[in-house]
Structure formats: structure tokens, C-alpha cells
């Protein structure tokens, strides 16, 4: 029979491994997403940190023939409703300002996901903030102080943030219009926002 000390070592290692993998499963999956965004983007080049990029119109218009360079990010799964806009934020060097254009009651959402556990801590979009143009201050966990007037503040629990924008495409002829709107969802560092 097995000796107690072997059983103890085996059991402890097993329990710790079980917990660590279960606890970090969402983080590991989103790490793959972050690497894809920062490394390949939609196949048309890396998307730098603190910037957003919208999937190319051609990819949406002809999903059967994605470009050879397209990443899994853009070619896995089937979605013919919304143009996807993605980016990764690093708030450790200061807050970022999200600008959204007037969507004129079109469905859109900007989803702020905490990549450490795959939960959504905030939305900007039709359901939560309406479709008018606006500016939103995104701050990291260590930031104190007030947002500049006229700006709503969104506090992130994590300096790293995964951002997903979705803009509804009404029809084939609406695609370029929707793409134009999606490209106007942008981040700028707070320090570049005029007098603040």
C-alpha cells in the first residue's frame, strides 16, 4: 500500500493544480485573444496597445474567402450581424478617453472586459448610454481624482483591459456606412485631451 507521506504530497499537488487551472481558465483563454490582437490583428497587422481597430470591410463582405494572413480571431465562429472592433488597453501609464460618434439609434456596444477573469465591468453603447456622441474616461485601479467635466468615468478593476466594439450592419449596402462609424470609436490618452 501507498505510504501516507506519498499520498499527502500527491494530494496537495493535485488540489493546488486543480484550483490554479480552474481559477485561471478564463485568464488563459483571454491571454490567447490578447496575443492575437497585439500580434496579428485581423490579419492586416498588429493592433498597438491603447488603439482600436475594426475588421476590414472585405472580411465582412466575403467571409468565405478570408485573406491568407487573417488570424483565427477573425475567422473563428460565424457572425454576420456586427462589425467587430478590438483593442487592448494598458492603463498603468494613465487614463484613456473613449470617444464614440453619434450612432443615430443604430445598435452598437463597446464592451470592457477584465482579462483576468473574463467578466464585463462596463458597457458604453445603445443599451446602457444611448447612441449620442460622447467621451468616457477609462481609469485604472490606482487612479484617484475626478473626471474632466462633461466626461463620464469608468473605473477598471485592472490596468489591462480587453475592449470589444460591435456595430450593427443593417444590410450589404449599409456596410461602408457602419464601417465608417465603427472606425470613429477611438481612444486618446487623457493628457492629449485639450486643457486637462
Amino acid at each position: 500500500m501507498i505510504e501516507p507521506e506519498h499520498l499527502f504530497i500527491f494530494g496537495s499537488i493535485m488540489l493546488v493544480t486543480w484550483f490554479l487551472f480552474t481559477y485561471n481558465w478564463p485568464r488563459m483563454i483571454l491571454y490567447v485573444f490578447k496575443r492575437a490582437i497585439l500580434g496579428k490583428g485581423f490579419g492586416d497587422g498588429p493592433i498597438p496597445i491603447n488603439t482600436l481597430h475594426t475588421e476590414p470591410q472585405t472580411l465582412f463582405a466575403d467571409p468565405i474567402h478570408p485573406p491568407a494572413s487573417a488570424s483565427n480571431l477573425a475567422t473563428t465562429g460565424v457572425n454576420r450581424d456586427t462589425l467587430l472592433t478590438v483593442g487592448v488597453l494598458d492603463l498603468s501609464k494613465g487614463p484613456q478617453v473613449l470617444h464614440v460618434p453619434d450612432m443615430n439609434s443604430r445598435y452598437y456596444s463597446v464592451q470592457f472586459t477584465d482579462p483576468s477573469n473574463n467578466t464585463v465591468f462596463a458597457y458604453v453603447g445603445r443599451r446602457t448610454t444611448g447612441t449620442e456622441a460622447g467621451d468616457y474616461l477609462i481609469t485604472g485601479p490606482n487612479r484617484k481624482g475626478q473626471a474632466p467635466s462633461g466626461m463620464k468615468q469608468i473605473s477598471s478593476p485592472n490596468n489591462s483591459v480587453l475592449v470589444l466594439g460591435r456595430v450593427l450592419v443593417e444590410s450589404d449596402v449599409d456596410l461602408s456606412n457602419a464601417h465608417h462609424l465603427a472606425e470613429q470609436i477611438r481612444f486618446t490618452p487623457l493628457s492629449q485631451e485639450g486643457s486637462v
Partner: protein
Amino acid sequence: MSGRTYTYLAALDGVIIGFFFVYSFFFNPNSRTVRNDVVQGFLIGFGLAFVTAQIYARIKTKKINGWTTMFGCGEPGNGFLFRAACAQVFPGPINVQKEAMYWTTDVDGPGHLLSGEHDYIMHFPAGQLPPNDAFWSLTMGDEHNRFVPNPINRYSVSDRSGLVPNADGFIDIYIQNAAPAGHESNWLPAPAGKFILWLRVYQPGAAILNGEYHVPPVVKVK
């Protein structure tokens, strides 16, 4: 290989591996070293993490009329087991249910695998399209969850695709490989082989969020 065969083979593998594991672990003292303890502990712990997330996902998944979904993913207050289960069912940055609901199926109402060898319809009674404040869509994917080439370049049907109701107000969606004569406007082209379907509802209505609304089954007609 069908899903059921796969399950039986996986279970058989589990029994065989389990037998050798228990045997060498408990009845073969010569093989025990600290190194074995650590390596086996790590491997079994990893396997158990995967299995518990799978089992918990099964428990939390709602399956009605063949369609499966999960409520409550992505909320900041979720516990670590539930987060792991959500990550297995929807491996990506997910929406919370108030923003969007997703259902998927690879079977018809009675539970048989969907295949382009057959013709199917989805039958929405008048006023029973998925309630929403934004949009809904039904999207076709092949067995690897990729878009399906078809002569009319239609990859989904939705509230924007001009579905034509029957005289009684019902809306039938024809899910089949060949175009349905006289019903082309309501055709969702299927591949020749196996396929899956996704139903998305953005800004879902109260009847969806409180569980009253049931997605109608995919019905085999031929």
C-alpha cells in the same frame, strides 16, 4: 464517428486509465517516488480541473428544444467555478445576458444530428420571433463552425433579411441544402454535410431574460 460512440470510447479510455492508475498507485509500492507524486498530482489535478469545469458547465447549461444556452456568464460577481464553466462553453470575451443572448444547436427537436442530407424548418408562430430591443439572427455554420458557401451568398437570416410570413402570420425558415421552391426568401442555405446553428438576440426582451421564451425546435421535414 457519432457523438454517442465518442462518449462510450472516452468512457472506456477513462476506465482503463483509471484502473492502471489506481493499481500502480495503491498496490505497487516500488513505483512510488516523490517525483511520481508531483508529476501524477499535476496531471490528475489538470484533468480534474477540465472535468469539473465540463461537469459544472453541463449543470449550468439550459437545453430546451435541442437549443443550449447559459444564463449569467460574464457578470463581475461570478464565482471561479462558474467562470471556468462559462469559459468552456463560450471560449472568448463574452457579453452579459442583458446585452446579448446566444443559443446554439447541432441537433433537431428529437435530438438527431443536423445534416444537409435532410430538410428542416423552424416555425415561429405569429408574434413569437425572439423578443428584443435591438436585433436577432439565425446563423449557419458547418461542423467546424465556419461559414457555408452557397449560391445566394446568404450566411444568416435575421430581422433584416425580409422574411415573408405565411398567410396565417407564421414565419417558417427553410433550412436545407437545395433552394426550397417558392420559399427562396425564407431559405437559410445548409451545407451537404453536418451543420450547426447559432441564434443571437441582442438587447433581449424580458421574456428571454426570465426564461419564459423558448426557442422553437428545428423540425425535420424530409
